[in-house]
């Protein structure tokens, strides 16, 4: 029985680098059946291609516009059959050290054909990376959150997120248009996007940019609490007693912003 060819997606923002990889893969094709399913200039384009095609292996650069390689690897895990990811990188001192520590597969550019072939031959035995491993790599905060809907990966740009609210097993992502359900931990999201969001409640992070103001509301028991008013949506969110100090802190920023 002839072996099914290894389906490969190439991701690099520099055309010559993709061209070079194609040449080297052609050289490997003599030894190993290979099919190249596509080329993408950055992570987002790669995910677009994988909506309609599937790949066993993604060879991706790290430093890219729109979406870098490490973020791409994280979103790929949301696919029903995540491909194996091998990073190709020119020189990222810190990244390389981290890759070594966490046994992440990578090739250094310029790539040697022998090393590429060895990596390709290893692919069937490799398992997709885990989120735990990927979050330990020195990466910039993601630009998107990704959710799986009807076996497709949907990207939600982080700067469109109004709030993140933990409910039972899931986190609700709210944008001006709609809601999405995400399977992640709120604490970890807070660590990653701390500068962008503020915790108003044990179960809720609100984007600072979307805070319009605060309003004092009476409770049923006669006490009163603060509610966050938001840009873009009519909904309001309660501020917990513990987090009340942020009303003053952010309220001042909002006032200054309005004055300026």
């Amino acid at each position, binding site marked *: 029985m002839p072996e099914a060819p290894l389906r490969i997606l190439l991701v690099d*923002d*520099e*055309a*010559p*680098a993709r*061209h*070079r990889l194609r*040449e080297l893969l052609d050289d490997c094709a003599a030894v190993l059946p290979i099919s190249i399913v596509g080329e993408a*200039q*950055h992570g987002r384009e790669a995910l677009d291609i994988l909506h309609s095609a599937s790949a066993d292996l993604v060879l991706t650069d790290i*430093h890219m*516009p*729109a979406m870098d390689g490490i973020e791409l690897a994280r979103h790929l895990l949301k696919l029903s059959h995540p491909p194996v990811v091998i990073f190709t990188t*020119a*020189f*990222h001192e810190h990244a390389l050290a981290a890759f070594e520590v966490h046994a992440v597969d990578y090739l*250094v*550019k*310029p*790539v040697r054909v022998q090393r590429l072939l060895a990596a390709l031959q290893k692919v069937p035995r490799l398992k997709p990376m885990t989120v735990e491993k990927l979050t330990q790599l020195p990466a*910039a905060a993601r630009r998107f959150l990704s959710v799986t809907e009807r076996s497709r990966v949907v990207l939600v740009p982080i700067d469109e997120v109004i709030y993140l609210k933990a409910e039972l097993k899931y986190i609700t992502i709210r944008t001006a248009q709609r809601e999405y359900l995400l399977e992640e931990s709120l604490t970890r999201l807070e660590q990653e996007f701390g500068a962008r969001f503020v915790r108003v409640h044990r179960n809720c992070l609100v984007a600072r940019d979307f805070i319009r103001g605060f309003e004092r509301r009476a409770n049923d028991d006669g006490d009163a609490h603060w509610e966050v008013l938001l840009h873009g949506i009519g909904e309001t969110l309660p501020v917990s007693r513990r987090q009340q100090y942020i009303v003053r802190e952010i309220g001042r920023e909002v006032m200054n912003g309005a004055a300026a």
Partner: protein
Amino acid sequence: MQGIIKQPSAVPALPDLRNLGTVLRILLGVNGAALVIALAREPRLAAVATEWAALTAFVEPQLFAELAVLWLVQPWLARLDGRSAIGVVTVITCALAIGVDALLPRMAGEARGGLVRDLVFALTAQFVLIAYFRLRARALSPAITEARLQALQARIRPHFLFNSITAVLSLMRSEPRRAEVALEDLADLFRVLMRDNRELAPLADEVELCRQYLELEQLRLGERLVIDWNVKSMPGDALVPPLVLQPLLENAVYHGIEPSTAPGVVSINIFLSRDEVHALLRNPYTANSARHHAGNRMALDNIRERLALHFDAEASLESRVNRDIYEVHIRIPYRTTKTATAGGGTQPAARREASAGQDAAKRREPYLRQRVPAMAQPRVDHA
């Protein structure tokens, strides 16, 4: 290689008497000394100002005359050895003290302290200042050695080197000729990076280096990088610190072009205005550029320091964000090999020199465009 000032290894006997920084330091020094004397002589604080004014009125004519004469003879002084130069300055000081002493009383109609006092004051000031400038030069000279080190530290990012090599490899099979030129460009770039960069070099060389560098970037980035050159009126013979522009262009590409998927423009404007060379570099500014701010500032500080070492207060580097454009503006005094060493340098001669430099730059251009491999070596080897 021609067109280079040799930085003397020993400390020079006299400072550059045509440098604005030197002139300011002399003015401040002498007037400061006058203030101290005024304070010492006049116990009532209110009257110190009057006393100081009287003193400076007596000091200033000689001071200005001396600065003017020194400015005039500077090119000639620069060619003398240290001892004779100081001798000449001493003669000038004495002659001016005698001259001013002879002329002024008649003009001011006022009794003055006498020739001996004037001479003592003038010569003391002169020798104290010379000693000060020598100390300062000695303090700075290790810094000049260090400038070389800094130039190396401001070196090309490793990711550029490895990505360029990958780009060259990608051309090997399909376009071997382009691969050859790209490798030659890379070799030239590293030749400059590895040589002794303490010496000033002609602007035309720096611009040539920038062209080669951007040629390589273009190879990697293709149509994402649009380059807008405006250097037709630049004085190619102006002397500048090596690697004063290339690191800035590298930043422009790294922060302005690479983070974006859309094509962006890097523009280079170099021109001469009122005896100063201006270089304006612009690139797109995105929110992502702000993220890498620290790395960019290091390169700016490095260049600013080297400009200060070579030109003191006469050169400057400023950067600003103008909406979505990031702009760096460098200002360097217009010096050429002629004006800097032999001097003679009246302005018209310098201007002629400037146009000659442009001609040289123009002559260089055609073969740059054609990229004939045999001629693609633009500068004389200085090995």
